């Protein structure tokens, strides 16, 4: 099978959806001629033209709000917010409008909107270009939240998000764009709400999102050398959450680590931890460990940035704490 990058996978899903359906269009800052600041939408303008590949002013609130309005008329807009830090500028429209029109209307409306955005540390942009803010969005009823870690997943999940009748916040990660894997030529939709067991193991389950899936796989290899068998599970969809797959894995391994790049405190991992202790308490042999960023904004200097952001060794240390705990 040919190899596909994460970046090309996103582009392919967009192009496939636009070819299949005239109601799909994309808009965002610098996405047309430039192809987006991450190069994801390169080539789309040539194929689909400026009506369906729309460069916008720097107006996050209006871009998202206009997409809501088009979605309520039955179109399927895909918005690109250049950095998820800038998602904060559109939160009124996401939280009060997109998430609530269906509800407040008593089911009269639907908002089939996809908002793609990206973030992620590891390249020293400082505190306003690399935050991981998914926990803000999973807290809002009415939104779906996706965070894919592999090319096949990002392609299949973006397709499903575009064709979902709800607003979907679709997180991509900057450091994942160049990664490659073998992929079938034809896009295979991945259902929203299904986790994926990325690596099977018997001693401890690491539930990881985005780049931490890859860092956890590295940690798992190192643990393997010490005789620890690690299972890695990627929820892929944070809202709705595939609780059954996570609980099933933890009941098998009896230990759990939850890992994400976002700040640990009050993070997505806190919810996963709470769910696991509610549904798998009697199976747990150790307290659930959490791995995430330390409680500080992202610093510019590489040494400080790397210290704040979780690395493979942080996951490995958490794995060891769960298996080395005295019974």
């Amino acid at each position, binding site marked *: 099978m040919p190899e596909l990058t994460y970046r090309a996978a996103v582009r392919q899903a967009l192009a496939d959806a636009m070819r299949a359906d005239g109601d799909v269009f994309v808009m965002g800052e610098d996405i047309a001629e430039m192809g987006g600041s991450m190069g994801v939408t390169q080539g789309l303008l040539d194929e689909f033209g400026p009506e369906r590949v729309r460069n916008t002013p720097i107006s996050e609130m*209006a871009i998202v709000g*206009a997409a809501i309005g088009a979605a309520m008329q039955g*179109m399927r807009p895909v918005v690109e917010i250049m950095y998820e830090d800038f998602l904060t500028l559109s939160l009124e429209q996401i939280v009060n409008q997109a998430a609530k029109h269906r509800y407040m209307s*008593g089911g009269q409306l639907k908002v089939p909107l996809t908002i793609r955005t990206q973030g992620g540390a590891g390249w020293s942009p400082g505190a306003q270009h690399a935050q991981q803010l998914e926990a803000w969005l999973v807290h809002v009823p009415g939104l779906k939240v996706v965070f894919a870690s592999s090319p096949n997943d990002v392609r299949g999940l973006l397709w499903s998000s575009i064709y979902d009748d*709800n607003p979907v916040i679709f997180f991509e990660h900057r450091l994942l764009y160049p990664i490659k894997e073998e992929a079938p030529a034809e896009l295979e939709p991945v259902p929203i709400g299904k986790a994926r067991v990325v690596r099977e193991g018997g001693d401890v389950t690491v539930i990881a999102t985005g780049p931490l899936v890859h860092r956890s796989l590295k940690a798992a290899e190192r643990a393997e050398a010490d005789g620890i068998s690690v299972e890695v599970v990627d929820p892929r969809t944070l809202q709705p959450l595939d609780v059954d797959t996570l609980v099933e894995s933890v009941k098998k391994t009896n230990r759990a680590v939850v890992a994400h790049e976002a700040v640990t405190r009050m993070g997505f991992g806190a919810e996963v931890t709470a769910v696991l202790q509610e549904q798998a308490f009697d199976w747990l042999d150790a307290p659930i460990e959490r791995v995430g960023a330390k409680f500080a904004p992202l610093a510019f200097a590489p040494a400080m940035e790397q210290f704040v952001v979780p690395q493979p060794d942080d996951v490995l240390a958490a794995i060891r704490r769960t298996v080395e705990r005295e019974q």
Partner: protein
Amino acid sequence: MAKVEKRRALSQERLREFLREMLLIRRFEEKVEERFRAGELPGFLHVAIGQEAVAVGVCQALEDGDVFASTHRAHGHTLARGTHPNAVMAELYGKLEGCSHGYGGSMHLYDVERGNLGANAVVAGGLPAIVGAGLAFKLRDEPRVAVAFFGDGATNTGTFHESLNLAQLWKTKSLFVCENNHWAESTPGWQHSPVWDDMSKRALAYDMAAVKVDGQDVEEVFEVTREALERVRSGEGPVFLDVETFRMEGHYIGDAQIYRSKEDRAEAAAHDPIAALRERLDLADEEWEALDGEVRGVVEASVEFAKAGTDPQPEDALKNVYA
């Protein structure tokens, strides 16, 4: 800014229809105040008494397929667009028969079948969606228009400015109706905007066509809106209406208006659009009484309908979160 000549083209019959609509809204809102004070209505309610000519003038000019977004002061727009008073009143009582099935309330009245995309309780919150609906109509080449109602207070939000810029840039099929009652809650226009006495200047900054309208004259509102809609519908670009009006009551029901002078309230009362239209039509007392009696009957029936409505089950709160 376009100059508006007073237009006097509508038939007496049509104007009487307008008067009935305006009076229905007035009596409906008076009843809402009464029932709220009697403790029957939950929540937070805002009436638009004094602004009925804006709702009726604009909504009467709309065509089937047009859509609009309203504000927290939404009863008038909703009734003027043809949602039955029973459905609106039932919503205020939190009943399943309400126009939002009990999920919305006064600040979130919806009636998608009649183009009502929702009353919005976030100031300026509905504007971007009207840009987007207007974009969809343009992309699909549909002869439809999306209308945003908002107050003068909304013109100070970033959402407003981003929305007007985008609408004009893309020439979306959107109409912006600023109900300029010169109050943002308790803050008078002169305290919140440097162009409070001519909001159309806001639109000029975006090169958008703007018209100043006497919002107490329903015929003028109707005629100007009709012309604006023609322009928008044809794809020439959005239009901004600065509709000067008067809020005869407080920001919300129960507002003691300690911030407002007697003179200001008297001035508002002197600009009652219903009294002006009645005078213009030169209605005989018995004609007026007959009309008023008919409208009061409709309102009273809406209260009976609402009270007899179905209460949602508590667990219905978990429905409609996702499509």
